[in-house]
């Protein structure tokens, strides 16, 4: 580059998102009951797109190759930060664009977008957090707006109930998390991940440390909607407005994994705690247990749902299980590969899952019912959206020729390579089952004859744009997987050399 940006600019994506949020609040305070949805949504969209652009630019320019640490090393910007920044920003952009139509006759427009932006800010910060303090703060920064977002339909019992459950479980989990942090601090005397690592190295308080680590793991499990901290997810996703559900199930989950990857690998190194000689804290084993239980429960529960949205909620739990394989396969000798697999899957997942939920949003927008039967024959009414939905579902199921197949393949391949072939096998069986319930939707949309005689009055531009964009990306991710894999590998390299 001709000129060198100041290092704090490395946090560009985060800053842009945060500023957008503040800007929106400013709008709101100037004109509290504005009806100018275009302005608000536009601003939010621009902000998130700018973040996307920045992240992409940094990625390509290779900003993160030499990790840039800021603020007494409490925040670090490396390839992983940017990689996930890209994911969060893209999902945010999609959600915002889709919300333009979805939230059309809803008060608190500005608050809505501002909350989304704040949550996004928190997520990007999570990906950059290098200190347990920052982790906790950013975690909350992304959680608290999410609570509000889920419950934002104040007159809708479902939304409120969802918000309540999400909030209560969230509060409990974050309390557990912070207690774990306190224990770890007690053992190591620091909150900075590298120093924690060195502190972990020479301690004999394995028990206390262990409890601490487990509690921190619990916090992450909550954020990623993994068993047993998943209970909020089905209701939250079902009750929340579909775009919010998309946002949470894609971005929020990814954020949880991003921070989990960094904290666990940097602060609690496998070679110290797991494979170390003395008394160990085998959080890898924990991850394995969680992975198996999570994907199995998620998929089996999803297989027997009656409502599409709830099915997707469970399926997103199942996907959390898949990504957990990345953590569960550490210590296998090919850490970088498996982590890269996990990250790549999260990126692809970000698009296909968001797309799927946005299709639900579209259906709700048309006030089609919620159950599979209500979706019968949608293809005859809206073929293009249906094609897109088919792409999302088959991609989620891990069928070629879509991105989901690639990422899942590399994820499982990594597990096998690391010697955890049984994890891959269980994952494979689960995705076989998942095929069943995903194809139920396809069946309803394409094969069944239209039952409910709803008619589509309008084709909302925003929703369509978002859905089509997501679909295109999902397909393009197959041929373009090479570069994705490249970045993912670099990102993983930052964590495990």
């Amino acid at each position, binding site marked *: 580059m001709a000129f060198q940006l100041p290092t704090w600019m490395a946090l560009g994506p985060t800053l842009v998102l945060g500023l957008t949020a503040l800007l929106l609040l400013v709008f709101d305070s100037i004109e509290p009951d504005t009806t100018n949805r275009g302005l608000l949504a536009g601003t939010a969209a621009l902000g998130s797109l700018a973040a996307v652009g920045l992240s992409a630019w940094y990625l390509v320019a290779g900003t993160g190759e030499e990790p840039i640490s800021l603020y007494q090393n409490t925040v670090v910007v490396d390839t992983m930060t940017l990689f996930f920044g890209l994911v969060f920003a893209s999902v945010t952009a999609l959600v915002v664009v889709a919300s333009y139509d979805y939230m059309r006759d809803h008060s608190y427009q500005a608050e809505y977008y501002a909350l989304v932006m704040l949550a996004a800010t928190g997520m990007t910060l999570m990906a950059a957090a290098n200190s347990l303090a920052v982790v906790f703060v950013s975690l909350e920064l992304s959680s608290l707006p999410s609570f509000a977002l889920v419950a934002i339909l104040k007159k809708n019992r479902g939304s409120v109930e969802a918000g309540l459950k999400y909030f209560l479980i969230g509060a409990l989990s974050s309390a557990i998390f912070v207690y774990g942090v306190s224990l770890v601090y007690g053992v190591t005397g620091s909150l900075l991940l590298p120093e924690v690592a060195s502190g972990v190295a020479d301690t004999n308080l394995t028990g206390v440390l262990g409890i601490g680590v487990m509690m921190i793991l619990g916090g992450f499990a909550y954020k990623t909607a993994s068993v047993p901290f998943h209970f909020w997810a089905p209701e939250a996703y079902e009750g929340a407005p579909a775009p919010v559900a998309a946002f949470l199930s894609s971005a929020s989950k990814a954020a949880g994994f991003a921070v989990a990857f960094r904290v666990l690998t940097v602060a609690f190194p496998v070679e110290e705690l797991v494979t170390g000689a003395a008394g160990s804290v085998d959080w890898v084993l924990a991850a394995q247990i969680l992975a198996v239980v999570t994907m199995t429960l998620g998929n089996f529960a999803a297989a027997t749902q009656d409502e599409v949205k709830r099915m997707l909620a469970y399926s997103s739990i199942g996907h959390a299980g898949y990504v957990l394989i990345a953590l569960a396969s550490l210590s296998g000798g090919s850490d970088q*590969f498996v982590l890269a697999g996990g990250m790549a899957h999260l990126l692809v997942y970000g698009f296909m899952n968001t797309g799927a939920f946005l299709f639900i949003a579209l259906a709700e927008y048309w006030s089609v019912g919620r159950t599979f039967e209500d979706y019968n024959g949608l293809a*005859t009414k809206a*073929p293009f959206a249906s094609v897109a939905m*088919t792409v999302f579902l*088959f991609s989620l199921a891990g*069928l*070629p*020729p879509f991105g989901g*197949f*690639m990422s899942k*393949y*590399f994820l*499982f*391949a990594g597990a*096998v*390579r690391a*010697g955890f*072939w049984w994890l*891959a*096998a269980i994952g*494979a*069986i689960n*995705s*076989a089952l998942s*095929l*069943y319930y995903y*194809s*139920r939707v*396809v*069946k309803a949309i*394409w*094969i*069944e004859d239209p039952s409910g005689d709803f008619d589509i009055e309008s084709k909302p531009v925003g929703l369509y744009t978002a859905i089509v964009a997501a679909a295109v990306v999902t397909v393009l991710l*197959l*041929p373009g*997987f*090479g570069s994705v*894999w*490249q970045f993912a*590998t670099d990102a993983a390299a930052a964590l495990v050399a």
Partner: protein
Amino acid sequence: MWIEALIAVTLASAAAVFLAPNKVAGKLAFALSLLPLVGSLWMYSTYEASGNALLAGSELAFETNFDWVVAGPYSLSWHVGLDGISMPLIALTTVLTSLALLASWTPIDERQSQFYGLMLFLEASLLGVFSALDFFLWFVFWEMVLVPMYVLIGVWGGPRRKYAAIKMFVYTNIASLVMFIGFIALVFGLGDSVTSLDMPAIAQALRAGELGSLGPVGAGTLKVAAFVAMFAGFAVKVPVVPFHTWLPDAHVEAPTPVSIMLAGVLLKMGTYALLRFNFTMLPEVAQNNAPIIALFAVVSVIYGAMLALAQSDLKRIVAYSSVSSMGYVILGLVAYTLYGMGGATFQMVAHGLISGLMFMSVGVIYNTTHTRMVSDMSGLASKMPITVAVFVAGAFGYMGLPLMAGFAAELFIFLGSFGAFAGSVWFTAAAMFGIVVVAGYLLFAMQRTLFGDFEVETDYEVGPAAFHDVAPLVVLILLVILLGVDPSIFYDMIQNAVDPLVPATGGGV
């Protein structure tokens, strides 16, 4: 770049047809399908290759190979090319697709553009399956086939179409998953001796005995386990008894053109994959267990034929007889002799044409009588002479009448398998008895339906079928006879491609 062109053109046509209005979709699709047809025939005429695509020292036709995803030891590449095994199947695919599209004009009367678009999409995927030489790429196409198939059966099928479609879809998907795991396990077992999923590289490494152990699993066990996994996976597609139960349902529910593609080409994917993977990459496992595999083959032949004998639905009869005929392919493959493997490959083409012909004529009869029940019709010969004539010819082709493609194929297989391995004489003799049973049920069915006084419950005058229904039948029967009179049209290149697979020392002929 010809293969790419072929696939691209087909995909483009699919998209074009998908967007076209329903009225013109059928004609447009047929017209567009002539492009890949002509293309493949041109490729056949200029085909120059030698050896087996997966083995060293082979010269491939229309080969292209460049990197796709560079991921350390698991790099993926776009690698396509044709050898004597895939070239005939490519031709088969294009020919059958065009004819099937023609045969769709009458039965498909709703959502035409979607139907024809999917058919062409299906063709593109099939072309990919038969030409891909990078495992990953191959698998992508392999799975791509299922999506259109699922919708085609599910939307345009018969009364129980939803059940049949989802059963086919999930069953075959689980199968490909099992196969996938088996193969990937092999690749990992190879460790660093391969740096990509390039099938030739993997095949040669495996044959060079570079398979190491995977975790606690030793090389020997891994080999067998992978072989079993892949065999099971492909056996569902073929289908080999007892993995066949999805097939009759799918066939009976599927509309005629889809049945044609299903029996004519999709089943061949299974045997093609068996040949490419199990029998090319793990020959010693196959040979050591030849009797067991042959048992599967013989059971498929006889049991399938018996099932066909018990059916009263013309389509079910043909469906089960496909199970029977594909059993011969397995028998020929496991023989590991020139005539055996060559005959098996030739049988893929021959059965593709003949079963396509049978389903097509059953479809024509159904279009006219609106029943497929043997008991519900008789004396059709007096109403639709040409259709019946072709049906009879096709049936005798199915029975392996000399100078028709089926006879050549089965003769080669028997010549190859007789004495090829322990107990092969008995297995071959047992399998041959299929030709009697097949004659049995086809003759019974024909006597009941075609001859005697004309009796069909219809509220309209039953007359001869339309030209665009009969034309493909005639084309097919002519092709069948052509291949029967001069098998070398394909057999020479097939032999050339399977010859490297045949162990120098081996029983049989």
